């Protein structure tokens, strides 16, 4: 358990802050000079003259929820697709699944964001959809490639001879054999999703322009970095801590499983 202490703490701090922060935040909207250092504010003020500490308390929930939802949705969609494409013996099915995704890949994602911003601004689900859409092809390709080399193993053939359903082969063997790859990708993708969500909000999708949001704070307070670093540094550090923590947690967990596994055999 002690091995989980550090990564666990790294994850817990931002998550707890994100979930409980809004309860502790004040609702006062009076504004001070923008990008003020000090002046009665623990972390100074932001681009609008709001109290950074207060914004930090407010800004985690939406971000953590959107990023987690979007990443989860991406994986729920992409891994099955990748597995099907990688494991199928039908070339047609493979192409039918993969080529449209390539088209999606080839569309400049900025254009896609712009469009969605124009069509459905200010909706969190649109934002989740955008993040999913942008990440989907990548994850599908990665899982397909991994599944491709696993799906010809005799172990898979044996399961097929047992009349195992393809889904079960995929879940109980292929997906397990590539879990480390998926975990590695998932960790970085979560981080990517956080910033994608922020840059989308920059374009007007998702987070409302005034809403407090760590990633958006990082983006909107960037011009004041040298006047008042806290407005960027505090939320950025929280994001960094969250993503490093998540990844270390995955690493630790996989390693522990392996150790247990080695000991058990």
């Amino acid at each position, binding site marked *: 358990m002690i091995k989980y202490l550090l990564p666990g703490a790294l994850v817990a701090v931002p998550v707890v802050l994100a979930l409980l922060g809004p309860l502790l935040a004040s609702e006062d909207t009076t504004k001070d000079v923008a990008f003020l250092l000090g002046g009665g504010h623990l972390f100074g003020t932001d681009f609008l003259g709001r109290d950074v500490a207060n914004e930090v308390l407010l800004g985690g929930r939406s971000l953590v929820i959107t990023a987690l939802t979007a990443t989860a949705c991406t994986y729920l969609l992409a891994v099955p697709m990748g597995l099907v494409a990688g494991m199928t013996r039908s070339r047609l099915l493979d192409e039918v699944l993969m080529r449209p995704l*390539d088209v999606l890949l*080839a569309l400049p994602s900025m254009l896609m964001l712009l469009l969605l911003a*124009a069509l459905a601004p200010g909706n969190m689900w649109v934002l989740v959809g955008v993040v999913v859409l942008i990440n989907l092809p*990548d994850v599908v390709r990665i899982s397909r490639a991994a599944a491709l*080399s696993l799906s*010809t193993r005799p172990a898979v053939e044996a399961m097929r001879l047992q009349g195992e359903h393809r889904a079960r082969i995929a879940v109980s063997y292929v997906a397990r054999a590539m879990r480390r790859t998926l975990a*590695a990708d998932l960790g*970085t993708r979560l981080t*990517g999703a956080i910033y994608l969500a922020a840059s989308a909000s920059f374009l007007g999708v998702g987070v409302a322009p005034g809403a407090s949001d760590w990633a958006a704070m990082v983006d909107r307070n960037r011009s004041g970095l040298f006047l008042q670093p806290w407005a960027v540094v505090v939320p*950025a550090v929280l994001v960094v801590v969250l993503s490093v923590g998540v990844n270390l947690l995955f690493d630790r967990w996989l390693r522990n499983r392996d150790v247990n596994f080695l000991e058990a055999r």
Partner: protein
Amino acid sequence: MIGYVARRLLLGVLQVLLVAVGVFALTEALPGDAAVTIAGDYPDPAVIAGLREQLGLDRPVWERFADWLVAASQGDLGTSLVGPRSVVEVIGAAIGPSSLLAGLALALLVPLSTGLGMLAAHREGGRVDRAITSTTLGLYAAPEFAMAILLVTVFAVQLGWFPPTAIGGSLIADPALLVLPVLVLLLRPICSLSRLVRAGVIDAQRSPHVQHVRRLGLSPARIRFCHVLPNAAVPAVQQLARTADWLLGGVIVVEAIFVVPGLGTALLDAVSARDLPVVQGLALVFACTTVLVNLGADIAARVLSPASEVGR
């Protein structure tokens, strides 16, 4: 294999076509058009209407698309709506700097991320592993612009080692201009790639055939590069393909901060000017690269899992 490549290329043409349709539709769906942007701030609606007529933007969408398609299929990508230059000229001017940056970044990215990933895997769970993981992830999670500003402030403004922007210089004539942009470009992909390499290597290192060549006395380096890596590389190659794509087109932040007149900047300019022919032309470039790069990645995936030919 040749048949496979030929079929994929044929499909690729179809994909590019679809992208063209998609991009056309997307740009159409954006608010405003070239007439609005030419008319400038505080525009006069009558002026806009006049411009629209002048530019032929008042014709139905499908008609304009058909025209574009016919011309494009004959190799004529048209001219910019808002400026005097032809689309080919615009692309030609922008593609050089982008490819230079992307090429250089890739050339550094592959060895660096492989090296880091392998090192971390080698020391799995140890201090080095955790240090590499935390650093690369920290860099990944830190906003790109902040890194750029930091690097520029330290290395260009304070120390004066490198020029802070590429303003007024030529990337080829003055390689020092490339240092900081390439560095910033590397920060993010290094992390995602090295994490994938690490994962693959850990799995591969445990496989019996790697154990076996170890017994045979092959040098650790050779084992790592010739036996572990090919098995570990499959997902990383996919990610690398995406990165290559991204480097060529999506590096807008870096191009903006360092004033590199590349494809990303050109696309941004064209989109904000609603310059449809240029957007279309650039989209074609991106689509073609994507199709080719993905094809490359898929070929690599097949080469790296030779047994999978059986089923297909």
